[in-house]
C-alpha cells in the first residue's frame, strides 16, 4: 500500500481563515498563515488554501497569503478558488503554489485542464469537484459556486473526463457531508477511485480519526483533506499518524523526522 497523505484544508476569505457547514454559514477562525505554520510544525503532508470568495483580482488576495506561507512552510501548497485562465495559474505558481485546484472554470471550459497541464504539467492541475448526492440516490452531480449551482454533470463521468483531459489529481468534496463532522461519503469516493488511475483527495465530513481510516480502507483513496477537525483541535496529527500506523495504513514517517531535526 502506498503512503496516504493528510492534507490541511484551509478555506480562506482573505485575510481570514473561515469554516462553514456544507460550504455555507462561514465563521472566522483567525490568520490562515498561522494555522498553516502550525500544521507544518505538526507534520502535515500538504496545505490546501481554498479562496471561497475568489478574490484573485481584489486588493487583499489569496496570493499574498500564499507568498507569505512559502517563507515558513516547506510542504506542497495547493491554491484554489477563482482561477480562470492559464495566466491566473501562472500567477499562483509564481506566488509559490505548487498546484492549483480549479472547479468552475474547468466546468465552463474543460479545455482549460489540458491547457494548464500542457503549460505547467499535470502534477499541478488539480480538478476540484463539489459533489452532491442526487435526490433519487442514482449517483452524484457536480456543483460549483460553493455547492450552490448544479452543472448537470455526473461526478464519476466528469472525474474521468478531467483525468483524460490531463488532470493530475481530483479534489473530491462532498457538499452533503462538508462541515458536519459525521463521516465522509465513502460510496462517492469509492465510485470515483474505482474509475480513476490518478490520485483522489477526499474532502468533507471528517469528524473523528475513524472517519479517515474508513475512507482509506474502504474507498482506497490516496489523500484525505481535513478542515474543522484540525482547526478546532479535534484531531491531532501525531495521534492520527500513530493510530493509522497501528492499523497498517502507510503514512509519512514523521517521528523519524522529528528525531533527525
Amino acid at each position: 500500500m502506498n503512503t496516504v497523505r493528510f492534507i490541511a484544508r484551509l478555506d480562506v476569505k482573505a485575510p481570514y481563515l473561515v469554516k462553514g457547514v456544507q460550504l455555507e454559514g462561514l465563521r472566522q477562525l483567525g490568520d490562515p498563515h498561522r494555522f498553516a505554520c502550525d500544521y507544518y510544525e505538526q507534520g502535515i503532508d500538504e496545505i490546501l488554501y481554498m479562496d471561497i470568495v475568489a478574490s484573485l483580482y481584489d486588493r487583499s488576495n489569496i496570493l499574498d497569503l500564499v507568498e507569505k506561507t512559502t517563507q515558513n512552510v516547506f510542504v506542497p501548497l495547493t491554491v484554489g478558488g477563482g482561477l480562470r485562465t492559464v495566466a491566473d495559474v501562472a500567477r499562483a505558481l509564481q506566488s509559490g503554489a505548487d498546484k492549483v485546484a480549479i472547479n468552475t472554470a474547468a466546468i465552463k471550459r474543460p479545455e482549460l485542464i489540458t491547457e494548464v497541464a500542457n503549460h505547467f504539467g499535470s502534477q499541478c492541475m488539480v480538478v476540484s469537484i463539489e459533489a452532491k448526492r442526487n435526490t433519487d440516490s442514482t449517483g452524484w452531480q457536480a456543483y460549483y459556486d460553493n455547492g450552490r449551482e448544479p452543472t448537470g454533470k455526473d461526478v464519476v463521468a466528469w472525474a474521468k473526463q478531467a483525468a483524460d483531459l490531463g488532470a493530475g489529481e481530483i479534489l473530491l468534496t462532498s457538499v452533503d457531508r462538508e462541515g458536519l463532522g459525521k463521516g465522509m461519503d465513502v460510496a462517492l469516493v469509492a465510485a470515483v477511485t474505482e474509475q480513476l488511475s490518478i490520485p483522489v483527495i477526499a474532502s468533507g465530513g471528517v469528524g473523528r480519526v475513524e472517519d479517515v481510516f474508513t475512507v482509506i480502507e474502504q474507498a482506497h483513496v490516496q489523500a484525505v483533506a481535513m478542515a474543522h477537525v484540525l482547526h478546532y483541535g479535534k484531531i491531532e496529527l501525531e495521534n492520527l499518524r500513530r493510530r493509522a500506523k497501528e492499523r497498517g495504513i502507510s503514512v509519512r514517517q514523521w517521528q523519524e523526522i522529528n528525531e533527525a531535526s
Partner: protein
Amino acid sequence: MNNKVTIIDYGAGNLLSVRRAFEHFGAQVTIADTHSAIDAADRLVLPGVGAFGKGMEQLQKRRLIWAIQGFATLGRPLLGICLGMQMLLEESEEFGTHAGLGLIPGRVVALPKQDKEGKPLCIPHIGWNGVLPLHTLSDWQKTALEGTKEGENFYFVHSFQAQPTDPTHGLAHCLYGGLPVCAVIHRDNLTGCQFHPEKSGKSGLRVIQKFLQS
C-alpha cells in the same frame, strides 16, 4: 566556502519555494537566466516541473544548455531537482525522444504502469516516500544525503524516472508499488533528486543545507 547559490530560471514553475528553502539557511540567492550569470555561479540549481521536451526547449531558447554543461565540467556543485534532475541525463522518452544535457549517462523512462503484483499503479507517483540506499548507506556520506536516515520520507511528484547507465551513479531509490524507482543520482559534483527537497519538510531542508555546504 561561501553561501551563494544561483537558481536557473527558465520559466518552469515554482522558483520561489526553492529560493525560500535556501534563504532559510541564510543563502545569498541569485535567479539567473543568462549564460554569464551561470558562468559566474558558485553553486547552481536546476529546478523544474513539467514535461522534459518543453524544459529543454526553454533552456535552448535562452541559450543556457552550453552554459550549464560548461559549469558542470568545471567541478562546481550542481543540483537538479525533479525535471531538473532528469535533464542531467542524455535523453528522455517523455512525449517522444528528447535530448537532455548529457551530464550523466542514461535515460529517462516512464514509471511502470503496474505494481509488483500486476495491479495498476497510480500515475503520477504523488506523495511521501522513503529513500533507500542503492548500494550501501555509507555512499551517502559527503553527499546531499549525508545525515538522511534510511527510509526517511520525501515528497515525490513525477511520472517518469531517471535510469543511469552506470549503476554507481545511483545513490538512492524508493519503492513504488513494490518496485524500485530512482530517487537520487550523483556523479562527482553533480547531484539530482527526483523528490522536491524544498517541499519535503525538515528532511528536505537538510538536503538543501548539505548542498549549500558542498
